[in-house]
């Protein structure tokens, strides 16, 4: 095993831990809606929500970085250049994440000043981390870029997947620099902030996960490089073609010119089409291999990624993206339901698949199989579907009573929040959040045990799914 792959295991382990923190903070956030006095004056809702959202970003980022460190030396048959630097920065990164979490939990009080931006909180959703920590993130990403490019140069080899990855790392780094700006004009702030949030999530991250999935397909199905690379180019072209200007759907109602309503509506409406292509691709790949693989957990999580992405991002996004609907749904729990499902389908399922791919090699399991992965997959997905169902009902209630009927007044907000549909939907969300958390525990149990003792004799015939 390469040193880089050992580092990848640390990143993937950290990602799994932070996935747990995200789940716990999410459960707590859900509880506030049902019992608003929970931890009153001890831990505010805003802190739990910040922890939930920021750990989501960080665990996925760590999962992506870990996945690249895992596949890169395999791809180039060369140890990653400057790996010692990456190893040091992993500990710096992880320590910074813990420090920031501590600051969020214990130091969120007092007035805002230039020093609070640097030391406590930048105050912008998703990028709340104080500036010292944001500088650390930039440093980690720069070293990551150095590792990837220098390894390719030293190995004197460049593959199609690596070209796509290397080009993607430029906007990935550059866009994050927007985290440091602090404009006082709200519209201006939102305008550029969406460049970071949207272009990361529906641009650079899509490309990054596309590269990782290409490697994953080669790994678990043995699909030829020519096939995955040709498909990767097409997918990247389609996703970026619709995704970049799909940015417009975030520009509704924030003080931008009216033409963004048209641009956002048109390109967002086109976004499900490449995702439909991915569904066909997933069925084709799984079908031509007759669902036979030595790593069924990874295969099923890859399939979950294709379907989850289509339903979470495509279906849940399209139902609320046209401006005439979005006028009422924007910023309600409806958006939250779309956000949960889209992140789950587009990214989380893919990173979990990589956990299993790495584990198969680490445990030297000829066939990776267990009962726990089926339980964890079922509970995580049922929990997620239940949660987004609850949030959807709550959001539709808000759009109906608060926005369309009540005209978005404070009184209408209160009426919607007290509506029986809204309240029951939030209880529903909490209940399925608990199912999701149990699924997470089953996943951790499976990660600790799967492949340790051979449940399938070596050389046994592969089982069709």
């Amino acid at each position: 095993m390469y040193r880089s792959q050992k580092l990848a295991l640390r990143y993937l382990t950290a990602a799994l831990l932070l996935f747990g923190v995200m789940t716990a903070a999410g459960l707590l956030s859900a509880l506030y809606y049902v019992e608003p006095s929970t931890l009153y004056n001890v831990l505010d809702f805003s802190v739990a929500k910040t922890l939930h959202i920021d750990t989501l970003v960080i665990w996925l980022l760590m999962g992506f970085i870990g996945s690249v460190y895992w596949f890169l030396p395999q791809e180039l048959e060369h140890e990653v250049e400057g790996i010692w630097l990456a190893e040091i920065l992993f500990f710096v990164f992880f320590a910074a994440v813990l420090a920031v979490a501590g600051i969020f939990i214990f130091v969120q009080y007092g007035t805002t000043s230039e020093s609070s931006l640097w030391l406590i909180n930048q105050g912008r959703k998703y990028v709340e981390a104080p500036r010292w920590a944001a500088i650390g993130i930039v440093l980690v990403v720069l070293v990551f870029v150095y590792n990837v490019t220098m390894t390719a140069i030293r190995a004197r080899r460049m593959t199609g997947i690596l070209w796509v990855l290397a080009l993607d790392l430029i906007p990935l780094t550059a866009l994050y620099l927007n985290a440091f700006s602090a404009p006082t004009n709200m519209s201006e702030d939102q305008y550029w902030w969406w460049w970071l949030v949207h272009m990361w999530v529906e641009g650079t991250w899509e490309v990054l996960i596309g590269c990782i999935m290409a490697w994953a397909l080669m790994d678990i199905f043995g699909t030829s490089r020519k096939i995955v690379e040709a498909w990767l180019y097409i997918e990247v072209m389609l996703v970026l073609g619709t995704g970049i200007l799909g940015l417009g759907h975030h520009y509704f109602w924030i003080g931008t010119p009216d033409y963004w309503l048209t641009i956002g509506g048109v390109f967002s409406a086109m976004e499900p089409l490449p995702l439909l292509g991915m569904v066909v691709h997933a069925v084709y790949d799984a079908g031509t291999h007759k669902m036979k693989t030595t790593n069924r957990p990874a295969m099923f999580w890859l399939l979950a990624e294709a379907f989850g992405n289509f339903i979470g991002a495509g279906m849940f996004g399209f139902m609320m993206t046209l401006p005439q609907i979005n006028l009422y749904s924007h910023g309600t729990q409806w958006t939250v339901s779309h956000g949960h499902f889209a992140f789950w389908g587009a990214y989380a399922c893919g990173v979990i698949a990589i956990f299993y791919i790495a584990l198969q090699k680490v445990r030297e399991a000829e066939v990776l199989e267990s009962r726990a992965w089926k339980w964890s997959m079922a509970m995580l997905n049922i929990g997620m579907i239940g949660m987004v169902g609850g949030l959807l009902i709550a959001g539709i209630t808000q759009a109906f009573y608060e926005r369309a009927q009540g005209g978005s007044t404070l009184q209408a907000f209160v009426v919607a929040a007290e509506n029986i549909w809204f309240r029951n939907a939030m209880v529903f969300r909490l209940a399925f959040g608990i199912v999701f958390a149990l699924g997470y525990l089953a996943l951790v149990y499976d990660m600790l045990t799967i492949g340790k003792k051979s449940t399938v004799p070596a050389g046994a015939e592969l089982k069709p799914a």
Partner: protein
Amino acid sequence: MTPAEVIMTAIGLALFVLAGGCYGGLYAAAMLRSSRRLMGTAFASYAVQLGLTVLVWMYSNLAMSWKLLILASVLGYAFVPVVTWRYMHILHRTGEQTT
């Protein structure tokens, strides 16, 4: 739009995409298994999507430009699975020949 129209239109649009997804997934499965029954189900899903397009067109208060966009995208849904499948098939055939 009235409050009820907002909700009904949004649900119609969600089902529109879901029906398109069912068509794509079932079309691919039908081609894999050479199954007429699956292909029939796939086309039935697409027919549902067409039906939803008609319902949204007739009963929602969306602006004409958005209705036209939905009409254009329902044509996109018809071709994406077919084109993707053919491309994947050609790609795999040439990929297997070269390896």
